[in-house]
């Protein structure tokens, strides 16, 4: 039970850091911490084989999102 509270607290902390931080390149690592925490929460909330699939889908999806944002940002900086 304590694991679930800990992971939720880390998710809130990381979300606050994402919102406070100003530069895009430094927002992304905080968002990554939040995605780890939410993927852990999905499995800890519901012990079911499909919740592993849900956690993996959430994690891969959010990583793809961060990847797209970062590479678009890199392209925008080069120009």
């Amino acid at each position, binding site marked *: 039970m304590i694991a679930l509270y800990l992971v*939720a607290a880390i*998710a809130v902390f990381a979300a*606050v850091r994402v919102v406070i931080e100003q530069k895009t390149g430094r927002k992304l690592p905080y*968002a990554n911490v939040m995605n780890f925490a939410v993927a852990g929460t999905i499995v800890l909330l519901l012990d079911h084989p499909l*919740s592993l699939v849900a956690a993996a889908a959430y994690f891969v999806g*959010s990583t793809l999102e961060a990847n*797209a944002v970062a590479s*678009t940002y890199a392209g925008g900086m080069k120009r």
Partner: protein
Amino acid sequence: MIVALEVAFGLVALLGAVSTALVRDSYGKVISLGVLVAGIVPFIVDRGYLDVAVAVSLIAPVVTIFVLMAVRRAEA
């Protein structure tokens, strides 16, 4: 769900929504949308709708990629 967790993830979703509305930078808006989705997914999982959670977490990044195309066109 336990009340403390509901408060925590509700706070995350609310933070994402408010900062999406207030942030001026377009990349910042997209990242804040990600925070909004991260706050919503645990509520869907808690009710047991795992298939809905899979669908949401696959659709949200695709939407973000489409929004990013618009961002890039607006910048160029």
